[in-house]
């Protein structure tokens, strides 16, 4: 049993180290990237993986807490992509455009179509949005 505990402790330490490296890279991406969408990409993906790895590492080192830590891991994995999607959509709709020259922009046509249909079908919804 003692050997198993030692192995779990070392594996957990490895996970914590890996996760803190990923968290550092996410913060570096937030600081260094030139554009809002690049920042969103770097920050969200790297920090999601880093936080999940740190929490899993602590759960391996302390197996009594593993259930609640698994709840935290699942919640981070669900909520972080959702919030990044909401932020990207909001910033596109509020008129912040990508830094590089765009070649393909599929979402622009979608937004235009929505605007057109809102103007033609019921003009009362122009002042109230959504």
């Amino acid at each position: 049993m003692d050997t198993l505990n030692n192995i779990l402790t070392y594996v957990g330490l490895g996970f914590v180290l890996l996760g803190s490296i990923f968290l550092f890279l996410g913060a570096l991406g937030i600081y260094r990237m030139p554009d809002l969408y690049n920042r969103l990409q770097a920050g969200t993906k790297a920090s999601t993986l880093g936080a999940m790895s740190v929490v899993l590492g602590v759960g391996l080192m302390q197996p009594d807490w593993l259930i609640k830590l698994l709840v935290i891991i699942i919640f981070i994995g669900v909520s972080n992509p959702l919030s990044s999607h909401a932020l990207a959509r909001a910033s596109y709709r509020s008129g912040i455009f990508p830094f590089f020259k765009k070649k393909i922009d599929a979402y622009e046509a979608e937004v235009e179509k929505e605007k057109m249909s809102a103007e033609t079908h019921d003009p009362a919804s122009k002042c109230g949005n959504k």
Partner: protein
Amino acid sequence: MSFVRFVKGPTAADRAIALDTLSVIGIAGLVLLAFLFQRYIYIDLALVYAVLGFIGIIVIARYIEKAL
């Protein structure tokens, strides 16, 4: 480093992204502190902080979109 972007960011959405990353880093830090001090209650704190941060980011995004 994320806090620098939070202070410096040109638009409000940059600040919101930095705040999101800061809250995730804070969750990982709380779990690590719980392990260092051997306090089980910090895990609950991290869970509540995750939920509240998620709700806050969604509300900020809806506000930036001017749909709130």
